[in-house]
């Protein structure tokens, strides 16, 4: 799929300012559709902030972010929200599941907010692939750490987003779970041709993906 259209991510002269100082500065960075990339850097280097900018969760002080050729700044707030729901899936360091909903309901809500039809077969299939079929009716509080993170990945990919962003997805996991989560995200992204970007400073992840953006962090 690479090279057939605009890059999935194109960041140009991006600067995110917080509290009067630049948190992130990226002169230019792009990731082709269907590829995987890492955003690396020490704590406080702005990895999460960059991911938020890619997801349209914050407005850059300067520069542009284009996702699939769409300039996020050109969209109004509601359109940006809908675009995010339909195009981007996010995985966080912690699972962040909706506590009032069961695992399958969390996935159904993600489908709804992405503007996709309710599809119980797709939900069942996603849960089965991630070895969560038996936990479909469980509430998040009843899940183990590994199950929670798998459920979060299932929620992020259920609407088959074009871009999957993961923010330190393995930081809270042991080696086995970290490897499994990473493999799951890679396989799910590959299955749907999604672009995968992982922000991490986890050494266990660095060797798995070749393309990377190193953030040096703010000047002292």
């Amino acid at each position, binding site marked *: 799929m690479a090279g057939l259209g605009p890059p999935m991510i194109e960041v140009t002269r991006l600067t995110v300012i917080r509290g009067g100082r630049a948190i992130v500065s990226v002169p230019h960075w792009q990731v082709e559709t269907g590829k995987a990339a890492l955003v690396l850097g020490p704590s406080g280097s702005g990895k*999460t*902030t960059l991911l*938020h900018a890619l*997801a349209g*969760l*914050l407005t850059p002080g300067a520069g542009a972010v284009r996702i699939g050729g769409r300039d996020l700044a050109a969209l109004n*707030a*509601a359109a940006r*929200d*809908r675009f*995010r*729901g*339909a195009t981007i899936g*996010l995985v*966080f*360091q*912690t699972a*962040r599941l*909706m*506590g*009032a*909903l069961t695992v399958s*309901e969390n996935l*159904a*809500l*993600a*489908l*709804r*907010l*992405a*503007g996709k039809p*309710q599809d119980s077969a797709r939900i069942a299939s996603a849960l089965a692939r991630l070895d969560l079929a038996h936990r479909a009716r469980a509430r998040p509080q009843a899940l183990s750490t590994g199950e929670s993170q798998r459920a979060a990945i299932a*929620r992020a990919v259920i609407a088959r987003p074009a871009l999957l962003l993961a923010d330190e997805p393995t930081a809270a996991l042991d080696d086995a779970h970290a490897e499994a989560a990473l493999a799951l995200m890679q396989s799910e992204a590959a299955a749907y041709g999604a672009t995968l970007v992982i922000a991490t400073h986890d050494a266990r992840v660095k060797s798995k993906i070749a393309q990377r953006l190193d953030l040096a962090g703010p000047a002292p």
Partner: protein
Amino acid sequence: MSLLGLVFAELRARPLTAGLHALMLALGVAGATALLLFSAQSEARLQRDARGVDLVVGAKGSPLQLVLSSVFHADIPTGNIPMQAAKDIIADPRVAQGVAIGLGDSAGGFRIVGADAAILRFYDTRLAAGRAYAAPMEAVLGAQAARRLGLEPGSTFKGAHGLGAGGEAHGETYRVVGVLGEKRSVVDRLIFTPLESVWAVHEVHAMQGLAAPAPVASHDPGEPHAAHAEDEPDREATAVLLRLRSPLGALSLRRAVNAQSALMAARPPDEAVRLFQLIGAGTQVLQGFALTLIAAAALSVFVTLLAALRERRGEVALLRVMGATRAQVFALLVGQGVAIAALGTALGLALGHALMAGLGAAGGRARDFALTGAWFEPGEIAIALGGLAAGALAALIPAIAAYRVDIAKTLAETG
């Protein structure tokens, strides 16, 4: 899973909190509903009971007391008037129909009304059994009185002094000759007999030395009999019920009667309004209490939603990450407030009707005025909308706070 589904899921996840808020609101709504139903049923009853009576003439005193005693049969009379004066008023050309009544006795708690048989036409009654009375000591009973006393044509009963239950029994026996069909008005609770019966009963008592007016134990000193032969040589009546040819005639006749020193005329609708003004003050206090309960419930919903939002702002941010717009998040919070309010309001309306049904069941045995839960008032729609608005209002500030959530900052804070 729609946003509405999420609203209910959030409530299901906290059933005790949601249930308590709904119950608190329900108590306020139930109070407001019950008071509305009580007022409406009371007003309807007064209107039904006063229907067809344009003017009441009786002895000077309180007009409200005159109407209460002679039309609604709920108070003691103001006194008696000379029968000749009653006849003169009935003969007035402005009067379309008139009937003199004599009060003072009762049977089993049901009032005995002495009057010409024309009163049965005056009240537009129909006989369900038997015939109209034609001689003294014959009686025609309203449907409820007959049912409660277990009387039918051919039965006999004894009257008692006084207008309530427990009066001293007369020795004379009334014979039931007819029972009226159900009118759903005060007529159902009355016992009609010729005015002569009332006079005869008290003449016998006077001759037997039994009817000393004031000291008779069961005879309230404030309850004058229609006639006390020992007191006055002429016959007396308690009041005259009048239907006038025109409203203008009613006004002029009332003025003319009230100009006399011994007589007084009163319009039942005016006195009903006065009565409601008196009752209204108490009702307003209770309404205020019910509204305070609703406001307190709304306040507790507000506090809970605000606290829940602070606890779960990470989830709000997550919803935005997943694609929910600000408007959807706002609607979600308002929806939670409205859902709690809807539950409380529905429960409150049901409780209000159940309360009236309960009061009706309890009061039906003890009193003549039976309340019912099977009565719907348009004002209940306003109560329901008020309940829902209280919930929406309570959720407004939390919803605005959710609308303004800074996603990136909140995600960082709630890591």
